[in-house]
């Protein structure tokens, strides 16, 4: 059973069809790179998989939950890094991570461990996140994700706003997640970097999947791979 199974999925933002008929299958343990121009529907696809955006039509099954019927169950099992930080400005790094970890049934100890994993400076631990830099807030959001231990990671531009060390941590997180049997979807414009962690590239444009190529040997230089789906490009 695929972790993500989408057939002709349409999803609307108001009246706008952000997804206009997506077909996609992602197997367990895959790390998939989503690329495409701005407004292509990458973020909407991630939100759909997270159970935040309702499929208006088509078949959408994520982690075994039919999103057309039940979008609530899937949310416990996914971890989403969005453009928004999902943090409360007035709470400290520790309080934020601890709150979301405990909401997901975790413990303060797991929150501590997640903060350590993201290598957030211990001096920043008790400072309200509103006073942190963008990069530090990003790390805090990632710590929340780590503390939740999701089965499906949905990362929207995870490298944005991070310094070199932070980017390396993100890559390490993705590899660890895949090694632990989780599945990862990464939407990114930073193809060079993301290609080193992804095993497959999916191209989205105009709300549909237009190309789907494996990356054999990941970062090894290879020729164009055969297409696996999407409408006829020619």
């Amino acid at each position: 059973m695929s972790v993500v199974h989408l057939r002709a999925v349409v999803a609307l933002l108001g009246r706008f069809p952000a997804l206009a008929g997506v077909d996609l299958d992602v197997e367990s343990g895959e790390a998939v790179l989503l690329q495409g121009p701005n407004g292509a529907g990458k973020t909407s696809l991630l939100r759909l998989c997270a159970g935040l955006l309702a499929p208006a039509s088509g078949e959408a099954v994520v982690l075994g939950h039919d999103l057309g019927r039940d979008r609530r169950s899937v949310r416990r099992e996914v971890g989403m890094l969005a453009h928004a930080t999902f943090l409360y400005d007035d709470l400290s790094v520790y309080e934020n991570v601890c709150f979301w970890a405990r909401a997901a049934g975790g413990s303060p100890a797991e929150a501590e461990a997640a903060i350590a994993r993201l290598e957030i400076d211990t001096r920043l631990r008790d400072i309200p996140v509103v006073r942190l830099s963008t990069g530090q807030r990003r790390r805090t959001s990632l710590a929340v994700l780590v503390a939740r231990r999701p089965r499906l990671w949905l990362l929207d531009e995870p490298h944005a706003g991070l310094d070199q060390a932070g980017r390396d941590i993100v890559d390490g997180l993705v590899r660890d997640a895949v090694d632990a049997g989780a599945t990862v979807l990464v939407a990114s414009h930073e193809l060079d970097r993301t290609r080193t962690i992804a095993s497959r590239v999916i191209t989205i444009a105009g709300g549909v999947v237009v190309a789907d190529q494996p990356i054999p040997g990941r970062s090894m230089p290879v020729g164009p791979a055969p297409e696996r789906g999407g409408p006829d490009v020619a």
Partner: protein
Amino acid sequence: MSPAEVTSTGSRGTRVIGSIVLAGIVFHVLLSFVWSDPDADQGDLVRIMYVHVPSAWLAYMAFTVTAFGGVMYLWKRSLWWDLVAGASAEIGVVFCALALVTGSIWGRPTWGTYWEWTDVRIVTTLVLLLLYIGYLAVRRIPADPHQRSRRAAVVGIIAALNIPIVRFSVDWWADRTLHQKATIKLGGTELDGLMLFALFFGLILFTLIYAWMMIHRFRIAWLDEQIDRHGLDAAIAERLAESTSDVTRAVGLTKTGADL
């Protein structure tokens, strides 16, 4: 009738109801002004009751339909019920406003004032009107159809739950009521037969008017949905066109990436 011949929200059904209503209005005017006599207490002012009471009853009935439509929507998730709820609320607001206006016009010669705070029904009706104006405001907020329907359903149900509470609290609040405690006593003799008949005839007539309006208003709402929906089809087609025009560029990106 084939769809192409349909040029309005009217149909044989509405035309039949409409004709009956027109005849009914003539009959109701004659009944109210010519055939029935002034009331012993209220004098000629009782003639206002023949439109005031049906308006108020229809307002309550329309709001009940709205709440029922909301419940059915949440149960069946069918837009059909949501459109019924919305159509009924709008018509209910019209009748509710009419009930308030006619009530206060009746109040001026009766109480010497257009507005009597100690009168339970008039105050209750005003709160009700405000509740449903809020409901219509929620419906007008742009959203996708099911978002709007869910919000509207919840607001419509709360408003309906509020009707008895508001009624009860205002009843207590206005220690005494100036309203005729029982305008109609079943089997009583307060109103003579023809006056009672005029009230009931008004009720039937207004119910028919409500039915006629409901059919038209529902069809308008339904057509609105059609326009949105086919606008949506066009939008999806546009989006797909966008994807094919983007394909060359997007796939070009992929290949460059793959060649690294």
